[in-house]
């Protein structure tokens, strides 16, 4: 089965991104396919490489990056939500004249159309949020 996963909450504050990660991992272990993982609302904060959790805690951002690399996943951060919350890649930094970037490895910034396309192309859209 083909899945698109939507993550609506930021890391650490809510369990949603943990649950989404465990779900994604299980989906792949069971031999299913993930078409895309889309980060929306505060979920875009899953995609900043500047996160520094205590060493004895899980690193939610790196965990996503590693999973993306292992399984060639498409991790998409919503551009409108990212602009509001300061998640920036090279293109966005140039366009909005920002002096830094913070997008984590394996993530890309794109539009809401990517979420809608994911819902159309997948057998299931699974939403993690409040």
């Amino acid at each position: 089965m083909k899945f698109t996963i939507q993550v609506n909450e930021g890391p650490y504050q809510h369990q949603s991104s943990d649950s989404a990660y465990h779900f994604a991992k299980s989906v792949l272990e069971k031999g299913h396919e993930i078409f895309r993982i889309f980060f929306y609302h505060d979920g875009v904060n899953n995609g900043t490489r500047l996160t520094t959790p205590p060493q004895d805690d899980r690193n939610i951002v790196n965990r996503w990056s590693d999973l993306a690399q292992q399984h060639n996943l498409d991790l998409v951060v919503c551009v409108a939500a990212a602009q509001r919350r300061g998640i920036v890649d090279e293109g966005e930094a140039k366009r909005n004249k920002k002096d830094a970037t913070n997008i984590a490895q394996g993530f890309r910034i794109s539009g809401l159309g990517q979420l809608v396309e994911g819902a159309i192309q997948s057998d299931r859209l699974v939403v993690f949020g409040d």
Partner: protein
Amino acid sequence: MSQTKKFLYVNRKAPYGTIYAWESLEVVLIGAAFEQDVSLAFIDDGVYQLVKGQDTSGIGMKNFSPTYAALGDYEVRKIYVEKESLEARGLSLDDLQHLVYEDEEEDWAEKDSIMLVSRAEMAEVMAEQDVLFNF
């Protein structure tokens, strides 16, 4: 992408306490370009999103409620509002914006977009869908 799916956007939260309502509306507007069979549902505190006469000047936030009136132009013609949620909050249809769309098959006659449904009927609406977006 030739398939058409039944999309239901479920709105559950009050409009300004969190950003879910506004960012949900952004998905609906962008999603309109994909020409799917779109419906919106308003349940729980989500019914407050449609209340008419909203004034946000006191909280310094953008009043996005006029955007709902444009949904008809985006081919969003089915807006389900749950009766029990309205009643629990002391609201009735008269407290909500009058949302309409133009029916091209009847000489562009204006028709009501909002349908008041019971909780049980809302469950049926949800069961008919291919995709549920939850906000």
